[in-house]
């Protein structure tokens, strides 16, 4: 696989049953992708204004993946979300104010200032915050899936990782263990052509999706810039896992459109490659498709954009108004006093709107009260 193969990305390996997505779903997909784009743009400008301590990372160009994948999940499914996947947090119900506050190290950020970047998971929404070491969360997702399997619950764990992370031994341990135990887990691989500055050809000699069979699990390759293709592939994998069919590796071909972090000018990326993928921007192309294929009016699409921008703007104000944490908090919380369950996340896909669609056997666990800036401000 060389860089130029990027243009040979396959289409959706799983054909989408068009009935799965309603018109409202499609609007939501566009809305969440836009929210990710706009929120990250806002965060980047806060970073440039010196309001974000440390460093800054975003997932520009990869919005279709986290949004499309998370959209396929039920409330009681569980996620480990990675550093390019802000959209998945939004789909689960995290609001941009808490994301921005987290980046700024404020008391109302998801981690209350304990951790930064996208190193967070909202417990109240069924998410476990990632660690930096990649791809460690794949093994944690396995563990959640193992618990679900042991208890016979029709639930699924999902996690993301970049293609660079597949070189790490923990990736292999995760695939192998999931394959042996046929765990209800979905692995979403985001091949954005680079790991920091390292191109695909220095990461592996054969594309990682080709390895799935060697673990006894199916590997599916999709166009990671097509949100419906991602949704279709992940939806199929989730259903398979939920039905006891075991894990799936879904490789999403995409491109990291920004530097590894805001400090990285991407001098190592050929400009043609960027241009080629810029033309395939997941948000632009989905908006165009909504107009052309699904009968959306231009105003509708524009309204989504305008509403999201206004909303993110308000969120930024709230985040900026949030205080820095009390220093004494730094010395608290190393140890837990008791275990508490994760709460359930939002599941905006219409497939979960009707109670009949929900897995009957799933007992409901009350979500622990999760802090939100809204609540605080109220």
């Amino acid at each position, binding site marked *: 696989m060389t860089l130029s193969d990027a243009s040979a990305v396959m289409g959706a390996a799983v054909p989408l049953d068009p009935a799965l997505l309603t018109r409202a779903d499609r609007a939501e997909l566009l809305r969440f992708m836009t929210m990710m784009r706009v929120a990250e743009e806002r965060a980047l400008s806060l970073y440039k204004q010196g309001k974000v301590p440390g460093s800054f990372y975003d997932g520009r160009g990869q919005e279709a993946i986290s949004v499309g994948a998370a959209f396929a999940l039920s409330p009681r499914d*569980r996620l480990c979300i990675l550093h390019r996947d802000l959209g998945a947090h939004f789909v689960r119900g995290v609001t941009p104010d808490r994301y921005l506050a987290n980046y700024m190290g404020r008391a109302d950020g998801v981690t209350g200032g304990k951790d930064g970047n996208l190193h967070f998971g909202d417990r109240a929404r069924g998410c476990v915050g990632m*660690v930096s070491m990649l791809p460690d969360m794949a093994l944690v997702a396995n*563990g959640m899936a193992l618990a679900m399997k042991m208890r016979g619950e029709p639930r699924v764990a999902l996690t993301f990782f970049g293609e660079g992370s597949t070189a790490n031994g*923990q990736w292999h341990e995760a695939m192998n*263990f999931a394959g042996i135990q046929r765990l209800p887990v979905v692995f979403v691989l985001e091949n954005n052509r680079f790991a920091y500055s390292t191109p695909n050809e220095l990461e592996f000699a054969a594309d990682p999706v080709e390895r799935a069979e060697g673990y006894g699990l199916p590997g599916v390759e999709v166009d990671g810039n097509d949100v419906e293709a991602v949704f279709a592939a992940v939806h199929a994998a989730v259903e398979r896992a939920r039905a006891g069919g075991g894990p799936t590796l879904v490789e999403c071909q995409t491109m990291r459109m920004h530097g590894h972090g805001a400090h990285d000018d991407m001098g190592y990326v050929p400009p043609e490659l960027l241009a080629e993928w810029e033309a395939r921007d997941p948000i632009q192309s989905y908006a165009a498709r909504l107009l052309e294929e699904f009968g959306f009016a231009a105003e509708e699409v524009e309204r989504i954009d305008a509403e999201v921008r206004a909303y993110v703007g308000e969120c930024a104000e709230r985040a900026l108004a949030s205080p820095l944490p009390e220093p004494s908090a730094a010395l608290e919380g190393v*140890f*837990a006093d008791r*275990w508490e369950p994760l709460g359930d996340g939002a599941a905006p896909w219409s497939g979960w709107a009707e109670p009949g669609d929900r897995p009957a056997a799933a007992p409901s666990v009350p979500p622990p009260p999760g802090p939100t800036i809204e609540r605080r401000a109220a």
Partner: protein
Amino acid sequence: MAELTYLEAISDGLRTEMRRDESVFCLGEDIGAFGGAFKVTAGFAEEFGPERVLDTPLAENAIVGAATGAAIEGMRPVCEMQFADFIACGFDQLVNVAAKLHYRQGQSVPLVVRLPSGGGFSGGPFHSQNPEAWFLQAPGLKVVAPATAADAKGLLASAIRDPNPVCFLEHKGLYRHVRDEVPEGEYTVPLGKARVAREGGELTVIAYGSAVPLALAAAEALEEDIEVLDLRSLCPLDTEAILASARKTGKVLIAHEATRACGVGAEVAALIGAEAFEDLDGPIRRLTAADVPIPFSPPLEQEVLPQLDDMKEACRELLAY
């Protein structure tokens, strides 16, 4: 009460907790049908089924990582490292994922990692290590190291019920050589409380794990007024009990089988040197393994690990100071 070996007490503690709480399960290499390298889980697969006594592939990060995820989802996993030494292969998941999740995210991770540790039987450089100090340099992990059968059972139960990741160091040298009265049925010993294993007024030997019976044997043999404090928990450390005993006797020897540099003995010595300085009547001494890998051949291994004679000698020196 029944007389059990340290090994039997661990099995008993684990079995009792698995009967009490069906979210408790074990995972590790060869622990199912085979019952584990040391047979701690012998018969468990029959009683609890193979799902709750899960044979994993040879992959320690996978074991600790799966335990972390399962713990988050409400299970109470007990991992077995086949030997404590193999924790180096699951180190990242332990110190970076499990240890830090509560501090970072408010996420409790109730898991136990059982670590058959220690040497003295020609296990060589990879089957004899005592890795506890690594864990103390990874905030978020609790660490216990029982010296008696009763404590082995009671501390294991507490470790399983604790909402945090706990490293449970079980010394292989004690497995079949230590035997004492162990309460039947459910039994817990609180984490973080040291135990005065022998009262005395002239010298305190602070020890844990395999160093405790060694200290007791030395004290008996010397017939001196030696106090032996068994730490039991290394994190949290019972600083009160340590300082109280140090202040009482004014002379302290800290003994453990792990290597010396930056070991638990160093931490205890530093604590005493800072907090009990005014009550000291002599230097704070340590008796530990030398800072070398643990060699295989018996005369070499004996040279490296603390022996009874070394303990007696160290006590005598301090008493005479």
